[in-house]
């Protein structure tokens, strides 16, 4: 899908982020094309999650710029990023544990629901219609992710793999243009990983969503991503197609290692 529209949806340029003396990111630049699956890989502590946090406005970089949908900013704000169509999942599941799977996914649609609290308190007319329309949309996502049976279950009671799926559902509910996935397959068994890969590719194909994902499973990364960027110690090490990255000596030394024997 590389260059299908040949237009960068997101471009980060010379991003530097430091926490006190710790430099999490140094002069990192890369872009994400519309419609592609872009992987960010690297060893632990390389700054991958920090990069996602910069993109959706949770961290504010000291230097550099973020160009999203042709608008250049020094930093994003979380609600502005969400309103502009950036959604994400978290490395450690960040679901609302006291709420049901359905309510969690409905919460992903806060941006699409505009009625004020007076309408909502009365729960008539427009507010009611809005609730039903969004419920119908969310049911579409529930069907897509095949979690119909658990919609009323509080997410705290669900097994890990399903929680990851509900979290993906919550991100999809926002109808994002750019979906950031932070280790969507961490801690999963082979079958769950295969399911998740299928969902990610389906999202990319059916909804045309651009995806940027962090993942440690190299098999998965090489299979599903169009292009890969490699970070190490906060710096960009390599950038290119999976085949190019795999052959890069610096990447092999820093991260991939060499198969021996």
């Amino acid at each position, binding site marked *: 899908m590389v260059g299908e529209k040949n237009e960068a949806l997101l471009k980060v340029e010379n991003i530097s982020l430091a926490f006190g003396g710790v430099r999490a990111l140094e002069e990192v630049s890369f872009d994400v094309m519309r419609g592609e699956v872009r992987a960010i890989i690297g060893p632990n502590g390389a700054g991958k999650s920090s990069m996602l946090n910069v993109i959706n406005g949770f961290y504010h970089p000291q230097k550099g710029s973020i160009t999203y949908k042709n608008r250049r900013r020094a930093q994003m704000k979380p609600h502005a990023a969400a309103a502009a169509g950036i959604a994400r999942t978290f490395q450690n599941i960040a679901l609302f544990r006291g*709420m049901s799977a359905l309510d969690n996914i409905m*919460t992903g649609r806060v941006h699409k629901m505009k009625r004020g609290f007076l309408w909502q308190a009365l729960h008539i007319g427009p507010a009611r219609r809005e609730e039903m329309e969004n419920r119908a949309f969310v049911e579409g996502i529930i069907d897509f992710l095949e979690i119909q049976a658990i919609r009323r279950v509080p997410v705290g009671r669900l097994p890990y793999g399903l929680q990851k799926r509900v979290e993906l559902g919550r991100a999809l509910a926002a109808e994002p243009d750019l979906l950031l996935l932070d280790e969507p397959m961490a801690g999963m068994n082979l079958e769950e990983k295969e399911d998740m890969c299928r969902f990610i590719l389906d999202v990319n194909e059916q909804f045309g969503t651009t995806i940027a994902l962090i993942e440690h499973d190299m098999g998965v990364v090489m299979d599903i991503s169009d292009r890969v960027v490699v970070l190490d110690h906060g710096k960009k090490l390599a950038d290119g197609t999976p085949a190019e990255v795999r052959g890069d000596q610096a990447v092999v030394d820093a991260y991939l290692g060499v198969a021996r024997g």
Partner: protein
Amino acid sequence: MFYREAGDFKSTYAEDQALFPIALDRWFVLAAAVMACGVPLVASEYWLSTIFLPVLILSIAAIGLNLLTGYAGQLSLGAGGFMACGAYMAYKFTTAFPELNMVVVFALSGLSAAAVGIVFGIPSLRIKGFYLAVTTLAAQFFLLWLFTKVPWFVNYSISGVPTAPPREMFGVPVTGASASVEARYYLVLALTAILALLAKNLVRGRIGREWMAIRDMDIAAEIIGIRPLKTKLTAFAISSFYCGVAGALWSFCYINIVEPTAFDINRSFAILFMIIIGGLGSILGSFLGAAFITLLPVFLNNAPALFNLQISSTLVSHIEFMVFGALIIFFLIVEPHGLARLWQIAKEKLRLWPFPH
């Protein structure tokens, strides 16, 4: 067997998201409504004025605090202060505009309390948990101090504790000592029902989900695009509105006097206990908790007489404190989700009982 969910098929999302999607629940609510309306026909004046009125009014306050603490996760010890705010502002409004309908007066006093609640809710953006509780404690003490020290709030009355002025609705006196207890009961019942319904609608819609999202995981909520400050302040405003209306009703329909001691720190704690025992994050739990906390002392006071025990009244009041404390600890350990959860468990058991196989 006795509680059936099966066979209740939904064909639209509206039916599925209805207030009471299960037919049996609807019948139950209808029966409760009929009983509530029929209470004055059977209950004595004593029961109406010392049991039903305070339980209903405190239920409103408990719903208010539950919206803030149970749903939005912001611990507050200021409920009494916001109730006082409602009571004093209702007094100011109704003495300034005697012709104003009492429901409008109560709404205005609730709005005043909401405005004050927003101001005291601002620290919640930076402060969480117990520390936030301490800042709301400041609201409690500051507001009571204000109403005691500034005579403008009581229209410079010499005693400092004015009686609630008598007001009529549809030609029937509804406030003050001269109003019949039945009229006051129906007014309070109607307002309680309406406010409970509105609260239920709020918590099952977008705003309720935003509150719960902030409560469960504020960072994720922010990244989804929920604005923490706006959401928390909405919770403070609506919660204070409910507490304000409850305070106004307490002064105007129950104790018939506008005094600060009715809204002291003990009141705040009592309302917090109500939602803890009743169930955090449950509208039904607010009612159960209010009833439990109000009825328990009455029961404990009368229990020795019921069993023909000769116990001195001081001992009874000491026992009351001990039993009360023990019950709160018991609930926190055994059922942290409160009476509302017990009710839910009972319903689940009744699905099969008495034929569990």
